[in-house]
């Protein structure tokens, strides 16, 4: 008000009158509500319950208002709800700027906006918000079902835009039109997807919660930690071998090496990371027995890459650490492909530093006296490290040890209790007990975690390694042989190594159904699962995993020699123009075809025009013929005949093809006559 007055005084009140906002049709509102629901619904899984409840309350309330055709709530009430909700989100996430808090805010405003729908502009805001929310679904999943759901939702959003811009009231027709539009846009999407020069993200720092909720191995092992991982059927990585597949008993995928033990937890020594403190890893190839393979690693937000024991050539940006783990420079946050070559028959660090060797002997004092006692006895009677190791394995095999994923809880002297009392456990127990025995007997030893085995998918030939293949084994350092792998679990349950965990467990032990192998219908189910996973893998490799590197690969395969961004932009522009031209031609040139007789008559008129005779708009065939008789007697015969034919075709009772042919013949004669006179 005041500003207005000041403007008047200053003579600046020349603001052009804005046209009144276009009001929103009542029929559009259900569409917008559907958009709000469809774009927010999949987020419910990841949002706090209270927000989901508020969302549904607001949306149901809005639907009720629409049905009653009631007035919308006042602005102050909306402002109050908005402030309360925002404060709630800020309190819940402790911030407003993270990824998850941002998504929660978007969803909240998506529920709020329908309560102030007045103009078409407000509807547009909802649709744009919907587009954003669609994108945020991909934070959680980029699977095939998500893709399909979002495709359907895109059709809904397009239909809503059509409805808002005068598409008429029939939902069926609008959805049909939207589907047509989206179908026509698909080839464009393909060209863009293929040729748009990809940039490897991130462009700037991501919020801290960007990679929450990724599962995988950890750099510590306490009782039960591996157990939880094994219950998961999730895929850890896939491997594609270009060399023959090694025997299953050689498929040890190396993860973090744990060499610090405090009586409860095994830890990776962070100081191992300091290269200067240790001798770099040295792998000697004993026999030329190599495996060449490419891993497609699911993101686990850690740096280790799970190469096969032991890698000798690495992709760029990765390297072997003193404890023989392959590490990437950055934590793996995206599904990534790595190509390795591993030597299966190798010797590792024959000349290990004394520092590392003493570190691998350390045990907490005053714990596990019985175990130490046993180890000391072996050391005295057997002496030779290899024979001590064999004795330990024999001990596991001959005494009554059981392989089970549900071991009893262990007390302070965990290893003592396991070795002499409970004797029930799985890989982490056996590996830990073995390493403690070896260390007590004076042999450098450490725990290695990782995955063991995997499953070949017969559909696409990829080896699938799941979290349930997580495994822990041991390594001892022997004079002259270096670090040697020993898997004590194999002594107890050889089938765990030979056939996988499903075979090793006694019946009745709970395990994810996916891992079990018995039963006919289960086998059929497994077949189905193989198919589904092969499809998923193809999707991951070609759609999700389409990054700059993959793009170069694909483009050079289809004939672009050195695809740089200039070439790609060129291809992009050319391809999209071509497709758009096709779509346009298909649409713009769809006209009705005149009946054959009419076309023939128009052809004749055109031929007459070349003789300088223009048919007047109101002239019928006979009137034209008469005029031609008067003005161009030399053409009168042909024109008369043609007029007769056309009149018969048009107004006669029968539809005779002879007359049509005669008419076309007249046109030809007219044309040839023109050529002669020339």
């Amino acid at each position: 008000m005041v500003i207005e007055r000041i403007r008047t005084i200053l003579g600046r009140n020349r603001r052009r009158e804005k046209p009144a906002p276009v009001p929103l049709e009542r029929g559009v509102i259900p569409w917008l509500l559907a958009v709000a629901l469809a774009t927010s619904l999949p987020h419910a899984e990841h949002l706090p319950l209270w927000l989901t409840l508020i969302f549904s309350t607001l949306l149901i309330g809005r639907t009720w208002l629409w049905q009653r055709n009631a007035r919308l709530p006042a602005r102050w009430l909306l402002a109050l709800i908005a402030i309360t909700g925002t404060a709630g989100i800020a309190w819940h996430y402790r911030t407003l700027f993270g990824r998850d808090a941002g998504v929660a805010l978007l969803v909240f405003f998506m529920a709020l906006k329908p309560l102030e729908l007045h103009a078409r502009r407000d509807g547009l805001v909802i649709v744009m918000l919907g587009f954003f929310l669609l994108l945020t679904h991909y934070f959680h999943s980029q699977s095939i079902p998500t893709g399909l759901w979002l495709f359907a939702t895109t059709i809904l959003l397009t239909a809503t835009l059509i409805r808002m811009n005068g598409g008429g009231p029939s939902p069926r027709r609008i959805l049909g039109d939207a589907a047509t539009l989206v179908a026509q846009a698909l080839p464009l999407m393909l060209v863009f997807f293929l040729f748009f020069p990809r940039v490897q993200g991130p462009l700037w720092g991501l919020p801290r919660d960007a990679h929450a909720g990724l599962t995988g191995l950890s750099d510590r092992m306490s009782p039960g930690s591996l157990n939880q991982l094994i219950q998961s059927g999730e895929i850890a990585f896939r491997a594609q071998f270009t060399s023959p597949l090694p025997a299953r008993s050689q498929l040890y995928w190396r993860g973090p090496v744990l060499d610090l033990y405090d009586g409860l937890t095994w830890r990776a020594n962070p100081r191992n990371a300091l290269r200067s403190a240790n001798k770099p890893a040295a792998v000697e190839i004993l026999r030329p027995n190599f495996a060449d393979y490419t891993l497609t690693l699911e993101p686990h937000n850690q740096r280790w890459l799970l190469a096969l024991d032991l890698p000798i050539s690495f992709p760029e940006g990765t390297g072997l650490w003193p404890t023989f783990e392959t590490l990437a420079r950055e934590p793996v946050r995206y599904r990534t492909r790595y190509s390795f070559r591993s030597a299966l028959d190798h010797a590792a660090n024959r000349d290990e530093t004394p520092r590392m060797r003493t570190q691998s002997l350390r045990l907490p004092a005053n714990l596990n006296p019985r175990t130490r006692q046993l180890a000391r006895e072996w050391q005295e009677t057997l002496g030779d490290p290899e024979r001590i190791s064999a004795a330990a394995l024999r001990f596991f095999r001959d005494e009554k040890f059981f392989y089970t994923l549900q071991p009893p809880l262990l007390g302070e002297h965990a290893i003592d209790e396991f070795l002499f009392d409970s004797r029930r456990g799985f890989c982490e127990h056996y590996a830990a007990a073995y390493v403690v025995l070896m260390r007590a007997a004076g042999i450098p030893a450490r725990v290695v975690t990782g995955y063991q085995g995997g499953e070949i998918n017969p559909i696409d030939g990829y080896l699938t390694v799941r979290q349930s293949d997580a495994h822990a084994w041991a390594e001892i350092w022997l004079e002259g042989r270096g670090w040697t792998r020993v898997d004590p679990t194999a002594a107890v349950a050889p089938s765990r190594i030979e056939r996988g965990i499903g075979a090793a467990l006694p019946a009745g032990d709970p395990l994810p159904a996916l891992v079990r192998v018995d039963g006919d219908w289960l086998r059929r189910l497994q077949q189905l699962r193989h198919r589904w996973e092969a499809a998923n893998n193809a999707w991951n490799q070609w759609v999700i995993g389409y990054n700059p590197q993959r793009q170069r690969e694909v483009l050079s395969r289809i004939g672009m020699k050195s695809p740089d961004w200039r070439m790609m932009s060129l291809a992009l522009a050319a391809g999209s123009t071509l497709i758009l031209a096709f779509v346009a031609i298909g649409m713009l040139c769809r006209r009705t075809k005149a009946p054959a007789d009419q076309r023939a008559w128009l052809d004749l008129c055109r031929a007459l025009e070349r003789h300088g005779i223009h048919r007047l708009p109101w002239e019928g065939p006979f009137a034209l013929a008469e005029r031609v008789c008067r003005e161009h007697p030399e053409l009168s015969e042909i024109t008369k005949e043609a007029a007769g034919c056309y009149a018969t075709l048009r107004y006669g009772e029968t539809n005779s093809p002879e007359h049509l042919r005669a008419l076309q013949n007249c046109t030809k004669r007219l044309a040839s006559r023109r050529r002669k006179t020339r």
Partner: protein
Amino acid sequence: MSFRERFARWLFRLGRDEHLPVVLTRRRIFILPTGAGILYAIVLVVMLIGAINYNLSLGHALVFLLAGIGLVGMVHTFRNLLELQLHPGRAEPVFSGETAYFQLHLDNARLLPRYALEFSIGRNGGVLCDVPPEEQTVVAVPFATTRRGRIDPGRITLASRYPLGLFRVWSYPHPPLSCLVYPRPIETPFPPASPASQSGGTTGITGQEDFSGLRQHQSNDSPRHIAWKAVARDIEHRPLLVKQFDGGAVEELWLDWSLTPEAADVEKRLSLLAGWVVRAEREHRRYGLRLPGRSIPPCSGTTHRSVCLEALALYGD
């Protein structure tokens, strides 16, 4: 003509369409993104940056699909006007200050329907209409009149945002349209009967007061005088009959230019005359109109009214 105007004439190919029907060829259809379209583009760019930042390959795909939809939508918007045919129609006469409606006959010879075509003239409000495939429709475009005479509304703005509202396509067809606009009537009491206006007044055969009989209906008779009772008695066989009246104060009213105040300007005087005509017709009087250089003998009925009003509308042309 200013440079700007000339530029617009060249760019938009303005000018009256001589050939009928007016066909909207592709060279006279123009297209630009709307505010919503620009917002859409910004949203897509932000989404693309998000997709790159989080390495969302499907995010790329979504952005590309939406971009494709926008581009295809542009072609659809263009198609919505292409090759539409317009035939000018008639427009009912109106009084100055009222809204005239210019009819346009739309002919869609294509196989695809055209939706949400928005017709408007100048700054007047628009009107929306759809044309189904291979059909014709009539649309009445409003135009607020401000002066009397035979007016030409000028070019029509034909626009459409269908289907997505991201692009606006428009064209300026200029078919020959015209509408007769009567002067705005100012109703005042009738002028005092001057000697001239009395001529023959008392000898009139028909009047308004006494019922004198029935006669057959003629096209110009007021519907009030139809003998509805008589008609109802035998609706099948009888012709429409009209009650005739006699005698009384039968008076022929001469609405004379010279009776209007000379001090007033031409338009005011015409408005006064128009007001008298409207009033005389409403009161079923017989009236004649006398303008400088033209005289319309007394009569009554809607046709007579139109003749008089037209004479007023076109006065001085």
